[in-house]
């Protein structure tokens, strides 16, 4: 029977914390950039201008049909060398964190845009009519009337997607970037205590994600009253 030995965790906590900060950095940047870019994509997709709506649909369908791992591999293995050859950035420069942030933002935007599109649709059509009847332009009506209502309806879904994103950032493992999971794995392999470190990291992810999703549920109940 296996004998647990958790002794390597306390010493590793400072490193794990640094890793967690990186995980949160990627998560927060990707949530914000993803929502902004996702909103634009949703608006493009609903635009009467054919070129824009095709671009929006094409983008979303492309990113939704390929695995996140593939997107990350594209960005980690290919984009840096592209940058180096295009902009003459020194090869030693570590582009992995930037690449991760960009990759997650662009990838999540496709998912956010679908949530936002549904949110916009959930606002009744009469609201656009009423805003127009008051003399508002399309842009004003969207910004002042439709999007605020849409976002209000979507907050729980956007947050839930954020929790999924938080978990998915662990996949930066494919670039050996030392996020929380990467650090836990490194410490585990170094000390020969992979079992303990993997279980520990799973527990940490669980506690954070579970609490966050309970908060979302609580929030949802309160606002639906």
């Amino acid at each position, binding site marked *: *029977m*296996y004998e647990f030995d958790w002794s390597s965790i306390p010493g590793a906590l400072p490193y794990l914390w640094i890793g967690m900060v990186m995980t949160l950095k990627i998560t927060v940047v990707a949530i914000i950039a993803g929502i902004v870019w996702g909103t634009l994509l949703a608006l493009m997709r609903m635009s009467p201008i054919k070129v824009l709506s095709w671009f929006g649909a094409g983008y979303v369908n*492309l990113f*939704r*049909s*390929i*695995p*996140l*791992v*593939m997107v990350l*591999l*594209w960005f980690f*293995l*290919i984009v840096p060398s*592209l940058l180096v*050859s*295009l902009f003459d950035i020194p090869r030693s420069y570590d582009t992995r964190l930037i690449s991760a942030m960009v990759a997650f933002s662009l990838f999540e935007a496709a998912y956010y845009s679908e949530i936002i599109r549904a949110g916009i649709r959930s606002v009744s059509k009469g609201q656009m009519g009423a805003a127009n009847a008051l003399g508002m332009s399309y842009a004003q009506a969207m910004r002042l009337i439709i999007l605020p209502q849409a976002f209000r309806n979507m907050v729980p879904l956007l947050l839930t997607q954020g*929790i999924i994103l938080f*978990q*998915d950032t*662990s*996949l930066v*493992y*494919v670039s050996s970037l030392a996020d929380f*999971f990467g650090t836990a*794995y490194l410490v585990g392999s170094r000390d020969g205590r*992979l*079992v303990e470190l*993997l*279980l520990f*990291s*799973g527990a940490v*992810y*669980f506690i954070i*994600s*579970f609490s966050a*999703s309970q908060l979302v549920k609580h929030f949802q109940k309160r606002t639906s009253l």
Partner: protein
Amino acid sequence: MNYHWNWAIFLTETPSGSTTYMGWMLSGLEVTLALSLSAWIIALLVGGLMGVLRTVPNRWLSGIATVYVEIFRNTPLLVQLFIWYFVLPELLPTAMGDAIKSLNPFLQQFLAAMVCLALFTGARVCEQVRSGINSLAVGQKSAGLALGLTLPQTYRYVILPMAIRIILPPLTSEFLNIFKNSAVASTIGLLELAAQGRQLVDYTAQPYESFIAVTVMFMVINTVVMILMHKVEARVRVPGGGH
């Protein structure tokens, strides 16, 4: 930029000699399909069972299902995979663990990935099944019971047939997800499609061709599954029902 495109690379023989790079790609595709489909079948069984359990009026049964869902939805897929692959064999009784470790590496990786994907996806299927059942009007259950059907009979003949139709569209998206998520298995060394793509980059120095090929293959899988599921949805649609 001076990149030398060379699509003929796929027809070149690999260093090991027995096949071409295209052969590697196809064997990767085969592993991806086998892994995803086998995991999907288990996920449907587990998720369906747990989903029904979550709605039954028994605190212990629904409690078990709730714990399952919360654990598997709130930990990253990658962590789950590593736990199945690295941790489980250590925690089992020594004899069993050793038996697993003596399997050939491919089988070890495949089984770990299959169980992992199945239970991960099962938790999501479970939630879809539950919300499908809950979205049915309470009246349906009462109507079934009022006719003298037992609770299991009511589930069997009244609730589940309608719930299945309601959850088909969200299940389709879970089915699509399982193919995409299967790429995570490349992290434990399973030579599925994404891993073959990476291997090709290492061997041939033609990253663009190999990545484009892998990406296109995933898109093809996605499209085919979508078309198939649309056909299934169309076939089971209830006349006059909104779904």
